[in-house]
């Protein structure tokens, strides 16, 4: 008779996994360490171990920058009319619907009026989760209205970029948004109203090649991908691997393309300080 013979049926394992860990822990892409989610949240979505800045959504950004998470939004009811009736493997209109359902936004940006360290500001905060934060007719118009509002009320403007660039599905319509926004910024510049551009991960393409690079100050979060062409396109063009850290904030700072690289926890005070300097 076998000593270890199982006597009856399958083992009962139902009691073993009562503690759910999923959703409580996050693996950092930067240092591969496991972080307690609450630690990450308390640290403004920055890894406490390696200082990797996680991407955050547009509302979280506004909450971090504006006093007491108090602000009102404007120009928040515009949505794209799909000017080209664009359809690839999937129709653009269905992509729009999905993005709207997932983010609760009509397009990839939120305009907000609020206070930053007691100073009134206008913030346009881009939403990367909405079709890669891409800029079509709506993003172009909403940002232009933020610029016009800033000029009209002589309120400092902050644009927080998080975008892959122009929205391909709106073709040349999206390209013309670069022109429109840049022209509006020329007027804001002449009116001597402060404009601070905050570049976050990622900021590329037509967004970098227009408003993101036109601030009185251009500041970026650490480790953000910032560039004109995407890294893959460049690799295909020059047919070599790109060096580590290429097109990251620190690389741009080294090449004189940014005024500062500022950690998320210091961002609000940095902007506040700059606005004090620029205040009339």
């Amino acid at each position, binding site marked *: 008779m076998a000593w270890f013979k199982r006597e009856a049926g399958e083992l009962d394992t139902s009691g073993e996994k009562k503690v759910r860990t999923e959703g409580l822990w996050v693996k950092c892409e930067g240092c591969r360490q496991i972080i307690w989610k609450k630690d990450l949240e308390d640290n403004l979505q920055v890894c406490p171990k390696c200082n990797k800045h996680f991407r955050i959504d547009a509302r979280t950004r506004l909450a971090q920058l504006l006093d007491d998470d108090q602000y009102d939004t404007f120009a928040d009811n*515009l949505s794209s009319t799909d*000017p080209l009736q664009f359809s690839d*493997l999937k129709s653009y209109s269905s992509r729009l619907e999905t993005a709207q359902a997932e983010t609760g936004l009509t397009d990839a940006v939120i305009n907000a009026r609020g206070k930053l360290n007691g100073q009134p500001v206008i913030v346009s905060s881009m939403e990367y989760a909405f079709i890669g934060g891409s800029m079509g007719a709506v993003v172009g118009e909403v940002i232009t209205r933020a610029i016009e509002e800033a000029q009209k009320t002589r309120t400092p403007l902050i644009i927080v970029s998080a975008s892959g660039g*122009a929205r391909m599905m709106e073709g040349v319509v999206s390209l013309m948004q670069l022109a429109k926004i840049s*022209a509006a910024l020329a007027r804001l510049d002449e009116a001597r109203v402060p404009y601070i551009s905050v570049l976050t991960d990622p900021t590329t393409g037509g967004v*970098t*090649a*227009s408003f993101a690079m036109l601030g009185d100050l251009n500041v970026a979060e650490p480790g953000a991908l910032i560039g004109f062409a995407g890294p893959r396109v460049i690799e295909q063009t020059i047919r070599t691997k790109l060096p580590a850290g290429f097109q990251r904030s620190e690389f741009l700072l080294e090449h004189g393309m940014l005024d500062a690289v500022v950690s998320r926890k210091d961002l609000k005070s940095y902007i506040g300080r700059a606005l004090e300097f620029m205040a009339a």
Partner: protein
Amino acid sequence: MRASHHSAFGVQVTSGSRVVNVGLVVTGTDFLLSMVESRWAARNGDARKMDLQLKARQELEKIEQQLSRLQAAPGQNDDLRTQIKQLNDRIDSLRIEVSANHDAWQRTELARHPQRPYALDYIERIFTDFSEIHGDRGFGDDPAIVTGMARFQGQEVMIIGHQKARDTKQKVYRNFGMPNPEGYRKALRVMKIAEKFRRPLFTFVDTPGAYPGLGAEERGQAEAIARNLREMARLQVPIITTITGEGGSGGALAIAIADRVLMMENSIYSVISPEGCASIMWRDATKKELAAQALHITAKDLSELGCVDSIVPEPEGGAHTDHAAAADLLAESLKTNLAQLLKMPVPDLVDARYNKFRKMAQFFRVEV
């Protein structure tokens, strides 16, 4: 006594009253038509289809001439007359097919045609006393953009244009018309010279795009383009931009914020190349023809979207067939537009430019 005419396929007819060897003419014409049709069918094969189409069109013209002579000839039997009529009908329908609107991909190939006139070709034919200005005073001189002073019908003007090239050595020198940041900074520098001395500015756009290279990123390609957009929007002189070939996204726009934006009939203007769009959206670069269509990149498309002011006609077959004629047509358009702009006081001009771009491409609805 009369010249006898030989078509490309050796069909012989005479230009007078006598028809030689009627049977041969008909069978010959049939053969001719089948050739044209097979060539027309070959257009869906990718290679050299524009040239084939052009040849098909030229051949059609020849056949038509010959047939009309046949028809004019007396003493024909009814059979022959019917046959001639049928052939004529067939030719008509073929002709309509051949000259029907080029699709977006065909326009793209025309816009990129290696014999298409480039900025310096137009400068040579439209302007006099061109003196080139080099360098950005910071890093270097970018041969992918040419800039300089010139005279347009006696008037002092400034010119900026992308420059492509035809042979390999020159292509490399011009970087295939893809500027680096110093090209855009040189352009901005000469814009400021034009502004200081109150000279109108002409820009000519023909680029696949701003160069996506390592050095370009290091030296701030995005910043260079962004700054040009802002500064052109408020430049205190008249600006006329012509998209002559490829209007490649931000690299094109960086010299195209103008009071008048003209597009040559067979040029294209797009946020991304059809190939790039196809490989991203369809994950298949061979879907470029579909992508070209979907992106709305032709002059007609841009005009309908309100993103350009007018379309400049090209000689039959495209600008590459006759540089001088293309330049004449463009000069005519530049002249008209410049005359209109010079009538406006500069502050009104700059306001109108602002308002144009402010109202452009507004495709949104208000949700309730």
